[in-house]
């Protein structure tokens, strides 16, 4: 129930993850696996460990024990520097709020990951604008995040998460601050864009209508995970 053997062809796999914060067992034997191009929702009650699981999978938090394998490489054995490089080049991130840099314009925000990876300004912004067009926010390129709506800002953030051509996008409650209509639009555009580029999406959400955009669902309870595909 808790551990997942590494299925053949999976891109990112975690087995028997454990993580404690003081007396709290945030993860207590959780497992996970995702294939290229797959959208997997992680659900569970507040405090169940779902965000800790996402942070471990993304190499942001190191588990106390257990293994995480990304494209055949052991994430837990990497140095911080190697993990940061991996996050910048292979992973994309979308969070609930506060992820855009307020001083930069929207197109500069979207271009930022490319600039951090060493791309020139003109080339980075051209690629950024292509992604903003796909997310239907290219008209906002010169606006600052404070001047756009929540739904628009979140679409700018999705464009930024995809701009480097990541193989995995981690989305932590990406619609948490949006109304139904804007939330649905963000999910539709995110999943369509990810599928078109064969990127995998790890989606943490507490909304089942948002989870219905996924291919598969993992439920985390008390730090243990259950693959709901095998619940029936």
């Amino acid at each position, binding site marked *: 129930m808790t551990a997942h053997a590494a299925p053949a062809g999976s891109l990112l796999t975690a087995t028997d993850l454990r993580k404690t914060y003081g007396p709290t067992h945030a993860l207590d034997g959780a497992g996970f696996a995702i294939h290229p191009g797959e959208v997997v929702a992680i659900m569970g009650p507040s405090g169940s460990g779902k965000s800790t699981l996402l942070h471990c999978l993304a190499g942001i938090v190191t588990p106390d024990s257990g293994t995480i394998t990304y494209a055949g490489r052991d994430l837990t054995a990497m140095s911080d520097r190697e993990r940061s490089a991996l996050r910048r080049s292979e992973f994309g991130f979308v969070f609930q709020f506060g992820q855009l840099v307020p001083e930069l314009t929207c197109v500069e925000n979207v271009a930022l990951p490319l600039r951090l990876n060493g791309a020139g300004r003109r080339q980075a912004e051209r690629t950024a604008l292509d992604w903003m067009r796909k997310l239907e926010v290219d008209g906002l390129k010169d606006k600052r995040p404070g001047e756009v709506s929540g739904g628009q800002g979140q679409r700018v953030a999705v464009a930024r998460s995809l701009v480097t051509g990541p193989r995995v996008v981690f989305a932590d409650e990406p619609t948490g601050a949006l109304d139904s209509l804007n939330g649905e639009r963000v999910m539709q555009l995110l999943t369509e864009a990810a599928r078109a580029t064969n990127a995998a999406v790890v989606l943490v959400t507490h909304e089942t*209508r948002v989870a219905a955009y*996924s291919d598969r669902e993992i439920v985390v309870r008390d730090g243990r995970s259950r693959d709901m595909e095998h619940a*029936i």
Partner: protein
Amino acid sequence: MYSRAMSIGHTLLALLETGPRHGYDLKRAFDDKFGHDRPLAYGQVYSTMSRLLKNGLVEVEGIEPGDGPDRKRYAITDAGITDVAAWLAQPEKPEPYLQSTLYTKVVLALLTGRSAQDLLDTQRAEHLRLMRILTTRKRKGDLADQLVCDHALFHLEADLRWLELTAARLDQLAQEVRR
């Protein structure tokens, strides 16, 4: 809609799994746990028991002397236990008002020592499967499709919230049903 007639047989059968009972005891146990607004008629208990007897799911363990209409003491058979297990493990078709059937199943799973969590998870997976189908249809459809699918999705979401809340209260419910 919740089909009361269809699940009464299974409900009585599962109650028998907790121990042999007379027809009258069965009715009382049913009314106590599930018949708050609609107590079961005696006639329905006896007709259900004779059907279950005919199908080999229960057997008569003894008959007590007396003049009552039914002094038979019923016990569940191995085939009956298998039937209860299969019924509890089978997810309900996601549709409105299924929570009373689900509530009955959850209570019976707790009473018979089966995993109520597994039962809720199976139902959750079945709901989400339908929600995915509706979401795909919505994505590919026109505005009318979107509105029709959204209506169904909001109802399914309400069911799922109930399932989550019930899952979070299983320990408390287990204590109450065993009281």
